[in-house]
């Protein structure tokens, strides 16, 4: 090492929350050569080191999102790897798993390689591609998991649609065992979903919209838990939204089944009555749909007790013309990378989860679920760090989002909590306002 400390960064005065390292307290985080050099209470800062004043802020491992739709290749009008990565780092995310339902889908190495190439060119967040469970996501034949793994895929998913065939799902769980890849499953029984566009219940009844019962998810979760038990396969349940699914996952974990599950910020914060209150606003339409208050409560309890391991955004950008239509005709999904932290921080204020559990669900837990690097501030780890202002109040102006698309239910709302700095591998890739630091 040279004598000079130029390039060394001292993040001082912040409350460091690093659940993986068991740290919660005011510490200085020292970044050197792109790695965490030290996290300690007292360190002498050399004159030429860069200072980030984090007083009043939280300093955490960079967030890791297991579930985002970056739309490239094929739907670059919605998002690109670069714009998605920019949205990610603005929200405190340093790593994002890209869902494979692109055009063409990521069921072969050329798509995987393209995504990685675009990610390297963007040079913002780390992007981990997810490969398809079935070729073309058609639910008929297995994709080539070995090649996908070798090219850099970290998990497999047909997200956007369920694997309808139980026999294909069984073989997918078995075959993936050879490569240690988790199967990230989108659970819905399509016959029960039918033409449903929102959660089935009193709100859907009043709005005259076709409903989707929570059981449409639960029955598929139960099927796949049984198949995971049969095969010993590694199951990760996507965007859990119903109380029944939470219960099923909890019981399966109690039985000792090796599985993980995720929940989105919106399923923790909004319910079907919000669809009614919004007046058919299609930015409240996603799949799975916003469910009942009881389901929301169950998801919060599941997050608190670890049944639902992590928070994933299901960031799903759609163009305005795909959303500004009849509710029945609108595409499913909302953007989420830039609002996840404040929306989830509200759970702490409402005493649904502790600060430590929240940060764990955004960092260490997703890293463990897919076996990804990061999610901790351990000495020597790549310096993927988020600096968060838990008191910052801001109005969500869709025009200011980095994402290409503006389909957010939080538009115009006042949010509390914001990422001020994001470091990836020790590089400052986001600074709020570009000012203080």
């Amino acid at each position, binding site marked *: 090492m040279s004598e000079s400390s130029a390039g060394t960064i001292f993040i001082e005065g912040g409350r460091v929350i690093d659940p993986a390292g068991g740290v919660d307290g005011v510490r200085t985080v020292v970044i050197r050569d792109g790695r965490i050099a030290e996290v300690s209470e007292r360190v002498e800062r050399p004159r030429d080191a860069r200072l980030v004043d984090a007083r009043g802020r939280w300093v955490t491992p960079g967030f890791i999102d297991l579930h985002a739709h970056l739309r490239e290749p094929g739907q670059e009008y919605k998002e690109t790897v670069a714009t998605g990565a920019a949205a990610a780092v603005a929200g405190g995310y340093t790593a994002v798993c890209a869902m494979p339902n692109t055009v063409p889908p990521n069921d072969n190495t050329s798509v995987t390689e393209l995504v990685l190439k675009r990610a390297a060119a963007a040079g913002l967040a780390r992007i981990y591609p997810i490969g398809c469970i079935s070729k073309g996501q058609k639910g008929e034949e297995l994709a080539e998991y070995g090649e996908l793994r070798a090219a850099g895929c970290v998990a497999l998913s047909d997200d956007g649609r369920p694997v309808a065939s139980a026999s294909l799902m069984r073989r997918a769980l078995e075959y993936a065992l050879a490569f240690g890849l988790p199967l990230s499953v989108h659970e819905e029984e399509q016959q029960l979903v039918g033409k449903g566009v929102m959660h089935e219940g009193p709100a859907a009844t009043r709005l005259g919209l076709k409903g989707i019962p929570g059981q449409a998810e639960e029955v598929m979760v139960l099927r796949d838990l049984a198949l995971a038990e049969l095969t010993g396969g590694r199951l990760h349940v996507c965007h859990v939204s119903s109380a029944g699914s939470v219960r099923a996952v909890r019981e399966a974990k109690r039985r000792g089944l090796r599985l993980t599950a995720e929940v989105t910020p919106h399923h923790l914060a909004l319910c079907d009555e919000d669809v009614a209150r919004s007046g*058919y606003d299609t930015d409240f339409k996603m799949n799975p749909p916003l469910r009942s208050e009881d389901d929301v409560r169950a998801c919060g309890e599941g997050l608190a007790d670890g049944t639902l391991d992590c928070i994933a955004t299901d960031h799903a950008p759609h163009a305005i013309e795909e959303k500004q239509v009849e509710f*029945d005709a609108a595409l499913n999904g909302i953007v989420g990378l830039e609002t996840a932290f404040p929306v989830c921080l509200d759970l702490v204020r409402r005493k649904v989860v502790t600060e430590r559990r929240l940060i764990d669900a955004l960092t260490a837990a997703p890293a463990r679920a897919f076996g990804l690097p990061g999610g901790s501030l351990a000495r020597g780890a790549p310096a993927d760090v988020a600096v968060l202002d838990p008191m910052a109040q801001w109005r969500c102006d869709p025009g200011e989002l980095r994402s290409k698309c503006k389909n957010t239910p939080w538009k115009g709302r006042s949010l509390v909590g914001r990422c001020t700095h994001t470091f990836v591998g020790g590089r400052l890739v986001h600074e709020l306002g570009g000012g203080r630091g």
Partner: protein
Amino acid sequence: MIGRHRHCIALEDYSREEILEVLDLAVSMKEVLERPVKKVPTLRGKSVVTLFFESSTRTRSSFETAAKVLSADTLSWTAATSSVTKGETLIDTARNLEAMKPDVLVIRHSASGAPGLVARHVACSVVSAGDGAHEHPTQGLLDAFTLREKLGTLEGKVVAIVGDITHSRVARSNLHALPKLGAKVRLCGPPTMIPPGMERLGAKVDHDLRSAVDGADAVIMLRIQHERIGDPLIPGTREYSKLWGLNAKKAGEWLKPGALILHPGPINRGVELSTELADGPRSVILDQVQNGVAVRMAILYLLAGPGEPTSPERAKA
């Protein structure tokens, strides 16, 4: 304006007073309809555009008649349902029509919420002529008008609505209007046709037709749409008709004397309602059609008329 409303989209949003404002004005509108010369110049120079994405004869004719009696110009536009991938979007269609400067846009659409979406993007008043399974506010108002006219009041009256509640926008509008006027609503139909949450809207749900109509002052029979059969909401029309259809014999034995029979039309004769009953003395189905014109006149008048008037006569002056 109808009370606070510039549009007529959902009776859920209407207060008792706002509903009564329409019904009271419709009384004088009905009087106009019974004159030898059925024309008042009230809305002369105003224009009403009907934009229908679903086929309809009676509702559209009713709106057009209402507009014409009030001397408004009418333009009718029929459109294919929009889709994301092809054709013009709903908002584009509405904006194109708005460029023709209508005062009122009447819209029917198969998608729930479509009139509200249009209303957010145009400057004129929007009246829903039915959207998906959401609401059919003018039908709800004309049913309330007919019941009040025949029963004198809705206060304390019992109204049974029988049929496919799940897919019925008429039932929802009735359910939002009738209790505000003091009536008790019972819903009856096979369990597959009763959606969740109806009790929360103040309705009593009963799957047995006999007990549902017992003591009722009026029964609103809903149309069974053939596409629902094998949906699979019901096994077929034979059993449906036997269990949830009304005929003269059942009506004679189960209904209280003088109980009215309503139907939003068009009727499936022999399925939900027998011909003898539909054409019999209890039936007020044709009164509903006439009252529909009066109620729609009142709505057009309140939304496009010259301001605060209480009768078409005064407005004319």
